[in-house]
């Protein structure tokens, strides 16, 4: 039993955090909202240089051969800066899926994923919209139990605007006559694994988003004065933030356990992921609610940065399965006859 991250994992997290916090400033995010694609090839190139695009690509294909446990802390940091680039999908969802699909497709694309030459995006039927389909060099798409491997030109995109201007969401239509690459039971297994990975990515980002909203709020309420005192010194303001800190603190271990379950392909991965996503997204939603409240009218403006993180938190809560979908996973396990519950059952 060792529920800790290694020195290396923590050091990697530190260096990625430093990089992201320096590079992905709110100003840069705002600039991205105005561009055509909303995505920044130069930044992607920097990720490639840091090894991030190939982090989960096997070493024989030029990557670092790491897994979900290695990546989960980095995904948290992506959340902390509200990263718009599709790194989490690429590294945590699409590349492992491509590996699972294997064969020529994997042999051809994994090296390109590693070098960052290709952005790979995965999506399943459960996703109403496909985020970043417009910049996918390879789109791995599940529809009605069939998987398609699509390059630009093999599918059409219709954008639907999100309240989060950083998100680029598309309804995707596969070109008629395109042959699926996987079908049947194996396709379903891939879909289940893909959903777990997608939801895990949301959960990890939600942790980072919640932390960022706490940090913004603590800073704002220390500076802002009312009735002659910093508003952060009022007990009601403190307790709003403390309540977020409590929920966030207890959402972390579930997310890390879910990463482990996903990395190990454990039988309980769907439950672990459902728990992680419910706890983390709830913490992030509470962070949003209490942060806007302690920001007062400033929090309601476009100018203050809070809304950047708040809107992403709202969106992630409903992406890769909304609360109802994940509660369904939980209910299916805990209300079943002979469910293993209670003391001692957690790691069985």
């Amino acid at each position, binding site marked *: 039993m060792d529920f800790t991250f290694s020195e290396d994992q923590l050091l990697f997290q530190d260096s990625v955090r430093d990089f992201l916090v320096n590079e992905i400033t709110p100003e840069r995010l705002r600039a991205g909202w105005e561009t055509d694609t909303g995505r920044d090839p130069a930044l992607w190139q920097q990720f490639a240089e840091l090894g991030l695009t190939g982090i989960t690509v096997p070493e024989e294909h030029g990557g670092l051969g790491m897994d979900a446990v290695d990546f989960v802390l980095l995904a948290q940091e992506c959340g902390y800066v509200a990263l718009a680039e599709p790194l989490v999908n690429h590294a945590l969802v699409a590349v492992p899926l491509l590996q699972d699909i294997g064969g020529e497709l994997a042999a051809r694309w994994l090296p390109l994923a590693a070098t960052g030459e290709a952005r790979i995006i995965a999506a399943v039927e459960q*996703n*109403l*919209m496909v985020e970043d389909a417009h910049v996918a060099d390879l789109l791995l798409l599940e529809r009605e139990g069939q998987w398609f491997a699509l390059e630009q030109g093999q599918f059409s995109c*219709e*954008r*639907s*605007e*999100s*309240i*989060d*201007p950083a*998100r680029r*969401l598309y*309804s995707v239509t596969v070109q008629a006559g395109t042959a699926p690459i996987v079908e049947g039971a194996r396709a379903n297994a891939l879909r289940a694994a893909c959903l777990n990975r997608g939801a895990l990515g949301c959960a990890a980002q939600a942790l980072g988003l919640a932390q960022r909203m706490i940090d913004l709020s603590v800073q704002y309420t220390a500076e802002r*004065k*009312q*009735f002659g005192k910093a508003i952060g010194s*009022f007990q*009601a*303001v403190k307790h709003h933030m403390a309540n977020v800190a409590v929920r966030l603190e207890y959402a972390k271990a579930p997310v890390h356990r879910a990463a482990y379950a996903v990395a190990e392909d454990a039988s309980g991965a769907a439950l672990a992921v459902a728990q992680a996503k419910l706890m983390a997204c709830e913490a992030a939603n509470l962070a949003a*609610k209490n942060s*806007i*409240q302690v920001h*007062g*009218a400033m*929090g*309601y*403006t*476009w*100018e203050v940065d809070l*809304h950047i993180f708040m*809107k992403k938190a*709202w*969106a992630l809560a*409903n*992406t890769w399965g*909304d*609360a*109802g*979908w994940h*509660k*369904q996973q939980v*209910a299916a396990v805990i209300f079943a006859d002979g469910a293993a519950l209670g003391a001692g059952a957690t790691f069985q």
Partner: protein
Amino acid sequence: MQLAFTEQQQAFRAEIRSWLQANVPAQPLQTFDTEEGFQQHREWEATLNQGRWGMVTWPEALGGRGCDLIEWLIFEEEYYRARAPLRVNQNGIFLLGPTLMEYGTEEQKARFLPAMAEGRDVWAQGWSEPGAGSDMAAIRSTAQLEGDKYIINGQKTWSTRAVWADWLFGMFRTDPDSERHRGLTFILVPLNTPGITVRPIPQLDGLPGFAEIFFDNVEVDVSNRLGDDGAGWAVAMATAGFERGLMLRSPARFQETARRLVELYRANEASASHDPQIREAVMRAYLDAESYCLSTYQTACRLSQGGKIGAESSTNKIFWSELDQNMHATAMSILGARAELLAHAPAAEGVGTWLDGWLFSQSGPIYAGTNEIQRNIIAERMLGMPR
């Protein structure tokens, strides 16, 4: 106790219902946070006024109908039921209008009230200042009396709809040595006066729902003062009293949201049923909205019989703002992956105005005195807890 409407009240309901059926635009207007939408809403105010439905609680002599509170509640029920446009001039009609009637000179009433009623003059509010927030007594903008002019300098902020409004009513410090509530004066300012700069503040949806207003030696005639010099606090309190009262948050608004939420839930029950929180929240929305309505009627009847609104009115703001936020949060949960989509997005089927409402509901617990301040007031003034 007699919980049924009189024949007269029923007739009134029938009259406004049929007028609205005939007059409410078939296409929803654009939001008044855009210039075009603002103009559309201004025209709607004129239409309402032509039907004498614009300011039903005003006296008949001023173009109103002299409605009592129960009739006003009925009017609001029909208005929301008909999905009639939001009132772009509510600052004028519900806040400044009654204040003018109480404190204005005859000349001021004649000058401002009809233009307000017709939608010609749309009014913005100038209370908050940077660094003052809910603490109105901390106002620092000045108005210096020179001859028959006030020379205004300073800054106001969070002025709703001020980007396209015509006038501002606000509070300025006329005695530079005064502190807190003393030495403030209530002044009406045309927003096209030289020296005024209006800077739009984009809100959560990116639209300029409010503005900062900068005053640089702005000259305003002394005849634009409402009440006496230095007596602004008393005048403003009357306005704030109205604001915190019933007029701006009629139960009908929340009951219609609750009704739509029940509809949304039923239309999406297959997916929503997986989250028991949703069903619970939908039922609670109905119960709370109904309770808000019942409590409002009870208060209205008490006031009609000479009762006074007491400290318990501070509970009002907390109750409706949390209800509104909860209802919209529930709608977001029901909509799931569609919740984040803008109404015009191709995939936004069934989303309607829920996202806009959700964003707007975020402001409820914040503006006009945050809910934290309201809780302090309840504890100290209603329950008598120590300061």
